[in-house]
């Protein structure tokens, strides 16, 4: 990263535009990525999980989660609109959404691991220089924490069941591989720009390492399972 780091706070869209195009584009990339990926998550994983749930309580909690993720998409879309960004333009969703969800076991492991990745990203954004983004993330984090705790609690129950433990391990093995790219490449011009403007604080590798620490502690320490070896550098 070159150049001084912006240390100010940006109160609203007008102030963001006053700082210049590069700042608006930096915030815009982060916001529109969330617009796309919150919807992709709700569509690919959470809505189908309603039908996979083994009982009514799980079904309705899955429904609540699906609607929260969908709500996140809408709230990020509103933020993008306030900034004057075009969210209708097509863009790539994260590769984790290529994972094909087929079972409730996969869903709960996904909530425990993949939503933890989202928590790591949001915790970084909770100090973002763009205050409307910071405020939104702070409001959404309790819901993301709930999604992770929901996944962790059900994963503990399933891992304690001899008939399910192998499926939990398989889901961990599969989902960790899909989630590593979630944080972006180790060498990233976008991330350099985000940090220079105070939109993010962490490098992609730092965020990835934080996720690996948390998830390996959960999988090995609480589930008693194996966490796959992960190279914390990722170059695509």
């Amino acid at each position, binding site marked *: 990263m070159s150049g001084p780091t912006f240390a100010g706070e940006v109160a609203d869209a007008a102030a963001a535009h006053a700082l210049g195009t590069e700042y608006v584009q930096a915030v815009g990339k982060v916001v529109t990525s969330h617009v796309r990926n919150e919807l992709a998550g709700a569509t690919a994983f959470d809505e189908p999980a*309603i*039908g996979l749930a083994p*009982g*009514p*309580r799980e*079904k*309705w*909690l*899955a*429904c*609540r*989660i699906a*609607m*929260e993720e*969908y*709500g996140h998409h*809408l*709230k990020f879309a509103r933020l993008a609109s306030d900034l004057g960004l075009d969210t209708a333009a097509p863009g790539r969703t994260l590769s984790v959404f290529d994972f094909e969800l087929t079972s409730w076991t996969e869903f709960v492991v996904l909530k425990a691991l993949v939503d933890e990745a989202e928590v790591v990203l949001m915790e970084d954004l909770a100090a973002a220089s763009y205050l409307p983004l910071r405020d939104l993330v702070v409001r959404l984090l*309790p*819901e993301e924490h*709930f999604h992770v705790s929901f996944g962790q609690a059900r994963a503990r129950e399933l891992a304690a069941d001899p008939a399910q433990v192998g499926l939990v391990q398989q889901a961990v093995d599969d989902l960790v591989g899909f989630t590593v790219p979630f944080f972006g490449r180790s060498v990233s011009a976008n991330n350099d720009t985000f940090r220079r403007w105070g939109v993010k604080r962490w490098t992609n590798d730092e965020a990835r390492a934080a996720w690996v620490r948390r998830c390996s502690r959960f999988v090995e320490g609480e589930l008693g399972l194996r966490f796959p070896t992960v190279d914390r550098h990722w170059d695509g």
Partner: protein
Amino acid sequence: MTSTPADLGALARMTPAGPVDLPLVAVALRAGVEAAASVDPDWLSEVDCRRAAARQAAVAAGRGAALEAALHDALVAATGAAGLDDDGRVASGARLWLLSGAIASALSGAEPDPFRAWATLLAAGWWPIGPSGGRLVVSTL
């Protein structure tokens, strides 16, 4: 805020899976969540099918965009973590599950609309839960 429709019993018995003729009980949230855990699985499965069918019918009728638009503000208004414990999330998820089915069903143009009676109860602030333990249970939240 919950209000009590004059025809609560009749509306509650017209469930999205068809008429249910069981004794009606109205319970508080905790008892509602307990009853929800043992709701009749066949009945639940039938509602699930009708919910999915309503969504497919709305999309097939060219109203997919209208469906998404109708869900937008309803969901933004209905979600928000403040003050919700696990029981509150179960009740909220169940109500959202029914609400999204009711919106899809209304947009599909189904007549008679299987979700209409329970949509009235949702709008009045009730959580209609379903047949559980030989009773038809609704909660006052």
